């Protein structure tokens, strides 16, 4: 008890400590493996990985960075929701208030905004890397497909988030974006062949997106739900499929030269 080592010892022998960490870490092979599969967060990893996975040269870490950016966005996003009302009367002033009076409101919003830009950039480079190393080839074809869908979901996440501040930028981006939906062949009222299905502005794709014939309160609420709940949920599920597949397909792809 007299010197720090004793206290450390005492703490480590404590029942509570043991219940959390189970055993001492003595850097044996067993311990290193235990550290990975005994921890839910590290559990995604295999116990051993290819040496190349540890070097930045091959993967550039882009997939991991994308996931980390996503986590940052989820955290900042959830926190921002505490001060945000998805209604056209309040949304804009809520954002102004985040900037001007809510403690740490500015930094959270900035992190969310720049984190979103960053994630889009990183996810694109991730795709480029996977293509350049041919990592989509057998047996990873399906996982590439998941990745493409995740890329699209990333764009949609960012896009739906555009409307939430209810400013000119988002309003017109969404207006133009959803008007493209109106041009869908068959299903959009301005698209080709739509007259055969009696499509009007009130029963086309765009209407479903906006919850009305123009960008207004319903559209904001829909964008908000898509942005905060629906798309993240789908993304998380697909992400785990994505990670799971990476592991099941043998981790980071490995040179398979045909000699």
């Amino acid at each position, binding site marked *: 008890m007299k010197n720090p080592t004793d206290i450390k010892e005492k703490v480590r022998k404590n029942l509570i400590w043991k219940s959390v960490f189970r055993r001492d*870490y*003595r*850097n044996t092979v067993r311990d*290193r493996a235990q550290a990975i599969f005994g921890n839910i967060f590290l559990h995604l990893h295999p116990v051993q990985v290819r040496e190349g996975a540890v070097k930045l040269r091959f993967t550039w870490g882009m997939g991991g960075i994308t996931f980390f950016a996503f986590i940052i966005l989820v955290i900042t996003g959830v*926190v921002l929701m*505490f*001060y945000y009302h998805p209604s056209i009367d309040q949304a804009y002033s809520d954002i102004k*208030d985040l900037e001007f*009076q*809510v*403690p*740490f*409101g500015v930094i*959270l919003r900035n992190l969310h905004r720049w984190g979103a830009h960053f994630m889009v950039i990183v996810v694109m480079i991730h795709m480029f890397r996977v293509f350049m190393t041919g990592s989509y080839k057998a047996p990873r074809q399906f996982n590439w497909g998941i990745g493409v869908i995740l890329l699209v979901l990333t764009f949609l996440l960012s896009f739906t988030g555009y409307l939430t501040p209810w400013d000119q930028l988002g309003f017109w981006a969404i207006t133009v974006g959803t008007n493209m939906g109106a041009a869908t062949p068959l299903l959009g009222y301005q698209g080709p062949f739509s007259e055969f299905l009696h499509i009007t502005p009130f029963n086309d794709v765009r209407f479903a997106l906006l919850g009305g014939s123009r960008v207004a309160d319903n559209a904001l609420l829909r964008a908000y739900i898509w942005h905060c709940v629906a798309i993240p949920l789908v993304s998380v599920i697909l992400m785990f499929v994505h990670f799971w597949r990476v592991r099941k397909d043998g981790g980071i792809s490995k040179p398979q030269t045909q000699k």
Partner: protein
Amino acid sequence: MQDDKELMKGHHEEKAVHGTTHAAAGQAESDSRRQFLNRVGWASLAGFLAINTAAFLRFFYPRVLFEPASRFKVGFPADYPPGTVNSQYQKEFGTWIIRLQDGSFFAMESRCTHLGCTPSWMEAQKKFKCPCHGSGYYITGLNFEGPAPRPMDRFKLSIAEDGQLQVDKTIKYPGIPGKESGEVYPQSLLRV
């Protein structure tokens, strides 16, 4: 395998693996420096997390509220007949303006001291009756029936410069069990 050596926190752990094979002085020095650096790194990380936790908590206390003002004017004394309870300001400010038979005024929070429901004034029975659990109060706010533990709370009532009555909710006179608030807090009563 050697890769993880420097990643260890404790010196003795390292020894457990490598024994005394690397006993060179330079090696020891660089090890201790690495250990120190590691400590600095983890300490910074802990500091980062601590500050973030504090910031996260601070985040929940906005600097501005959009609630009704805590100081508000409620008209001129002459607007209130003696022996009446005025519920005009109950909706927005949660306050009754009460004038007793002797002509003195006070402002009372419209909140039952039991579990915070809003009692209503029963003119016929001259009492406040809480709909939640049946607590009853006299016009002075003194509880006499039901589970309420103490009389209802009062706010500071004064005369503003323009002659209007002004309620200041930041100054509160909490009811003391079994005592008339008017006797405990003579300053809660305003005589005009």
